[in-house]
């Protein structure tokens, strides 16, 4: 009972860290907050592993620590530090709008999850709602930000949401499956970062509003 309470509260903390990732203006600060969020995710995995007796989740926690708390944030921090475009830093939606949108997403996700009748997640519905909401929060980040680097973080948030769903509902999946998903996620971030750098070098902008050569 206490363990599920911890998981549900930690999941709530994921939402807060997401808003921080989205809300700060410098991409490097987003990288730090993303690392913090991933640490929360690792803690959730560890707690779940102990609660559900799912040994695989310890492995997930370890691999998530290496990849998401250390590797991806370090890659992003180093790669993004050199890319500066103040014009792109102003988001399309301000902090108040962002918080309101996040609140709406949280309520809708909770309602959506309340209909699910799976025994595995009976006591972890708030966490499941967060995982679904987190996915859409990432989507919100992508559509609300002008800076393409922030869009990469949006993808990272979506991916953390999907990862939590996987841990809650499919934690007995073979380890190879989890490795496959994690590898894809890392490569996705690396490739997006490389393209973003090339865009900055060629176009001297990170503003998505400047990327409008292709239409119709």
């Amino acid at each position, binding site marked *: 009972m206490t363990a599920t309470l911890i998981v549900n509260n930690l999941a709530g903390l994921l939402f807060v860290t997401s808003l921080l990732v989205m809300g700060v203006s410098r991409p490097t600060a987003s990288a730090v907050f993303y690392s913090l969020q991933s640490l929360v995710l690792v803690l959730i995995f560890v707690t779940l592993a102990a609660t559900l007796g799912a040994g695989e989740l310890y492995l997930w926690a370890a691999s998530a620590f290496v990849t998401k708390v250390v590797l991806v944030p370090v890659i992003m921090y180093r790669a993004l530090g050199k890319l500066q475009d103040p014009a792109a830093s102003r988001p399309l939606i301000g902090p108040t709008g962002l918080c309101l949108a996040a609140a709406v997403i949280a309520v809708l996700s909770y309602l959506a999850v309340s209909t699910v009748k*799976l025994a595995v997640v009976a006591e972890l519905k708030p966490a499941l709602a967060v995982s679904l909401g987190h996915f859409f929060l990432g989507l919100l980040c992508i559509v609300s930000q002008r800076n393409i680097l922030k869009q990469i973080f949006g993808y990272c948030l*979506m*991916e953390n949401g999907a990862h939590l769903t996987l841990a809650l509902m*499919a934690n*007995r999946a073979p380890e190879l499956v989890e490795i496959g998903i994690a590898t894809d996620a890392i490569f996705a971030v690396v490739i*997006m970062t490389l393209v973003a750098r090339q865009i900055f070098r060629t176009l001297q902008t990170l503003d998505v509003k400047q*990327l409008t*050569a292709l239409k119709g």
Partner: protein
Amino acid sequence: MSHMEWVYALLLTPFATALLAFFSRGLGAAARRAATLFHLLGITLMLVLSLGTAFAVLADGPISAAGGWFYIDGLAAIFLALIGVVGFLTGLYSIGYMRHEVDNGEISVPTLCTYYGFFNLFLCTMLLAVTANNIIMMWVAIEATTLGSTFLVGIYGQRSSLEAAWKYVIICTVGVAFGLFGTVLVYSNATSVLADPSGAVFWTVLLGHAGQLDPALMRIAFVFVLIGFGTKAGLFPMHAWLPDAHSEAPSPVSALLSAALLNCALLVIIRYYIIVSKTLGPAFPRMLLLAFGIMSIAVAALFIIVQRDMKRLLAYSSVENMGLIALSIGLGGPLGVLAALLHVINHSLAKALLFCGSGNILLKYGTRDMDAIKGVARVAPLTALLMGAGALALGGMPPFNIFISEFMVVTAGIHSGHPWLMLVTLLLLTLVLAGLVRMVARTLLGPSPDAVARGELGVLTLLPMVLLLAMMLTLGVSMPRPVAAALDSAARIVLDQGDAPLAAGAAAPWIKTTAKPVPTAAPAAGL
């Protein structure tokens, strides 16, 4: 070699070729020749192995490998053979196309090695996607196709190509993330109902226990799957990446994206459609496919008719054809499914031909703007002939293959009680034909500009087109027996009919000629 070893060899060949091509960068003066040679050997071997595997499935039934992680049935065999044929022909075309680009300083030799590396890696990820039986690996493979092809789309490094690459990677990774959600829902649903949860990750096991799955969850899962993989398949309104990526990529890559990649995502949707139809009954998934299908055709037709950019026109035609395939599956029944599967083959051949043709024109004229391209028939007559025939074929003119499958779609629609929908579809297809005829008339005919040198580019940029047109004509006038057998087997899998023959009267005219039914059940040793 046993069938299983064929599958491993098939998957390893493009992967090894990719590594060799990447390593060729370090060979100095020999890099160009070495990378091209590795590429040629790799695609040839891949063609042999993919066709060999497909024929083995037709002869001996499904192949299951690596403890059930890979499963190739009659349905996968069609997609596998298509990747083999289209991958080989566009790979061959690449050699001629890229030779021109390197000679003209458009790309450097190290970039050429990277190109061949990613080209083969992309082939590898697509092969993985169509042979996967593990549904999470299916997702991983589809995601990997995006990652493998992003650099191919942005390889020219110009403003527009980088923009296209960015949109491609963002929209597709985000879209496919929806697919992951759908996948996880199905998987966790299955783990809670199966006696042995370890099988819940396999498509074959899910199919066997589809009746036990929770209908409410499967309904949500299918919506996620359709949005997720539909993004990758280019269905409206998730198609936004497609016209940009297809038009900005080098033409052989455009051909591969349109003729092979879209099919891979479509196959995943079909796989889920089969399971969901068994759990929920076919009404719900069919309704969704009909809706997405007709919307895709309608929007694409309107963009085709006003398009000035030749490759964007062809890209919208991909949206239209994917819509038509979705619509045809949505119509249901043996004829609808057969029409859809035949159209998958036909569209791939036609679109590979046309993107290669547009590549030849682009290299000659240096533009894709149809207002500037005039008189291709005088500049490069053979390209013009192949392009013209291909465009009319794509528009649905007999005696080519697309006429047959589009005719079957309409027949299936009338047969299943959707006359009005078919009327609308026919009107939209007429618009598409008008757009294609307009393209042919404006670009191929008329006086040629003096600045454009006359003459074809070379054998390697023409031979793949000749072969593609020959195949299209063959499929249009006489259905080869192995293709008919493969379609028959695949349709029975989609309809979940086992070894029972397709319903009489509703089947395609060539079904009678099928030599013997292909077994669809998994071999005893498999799953």
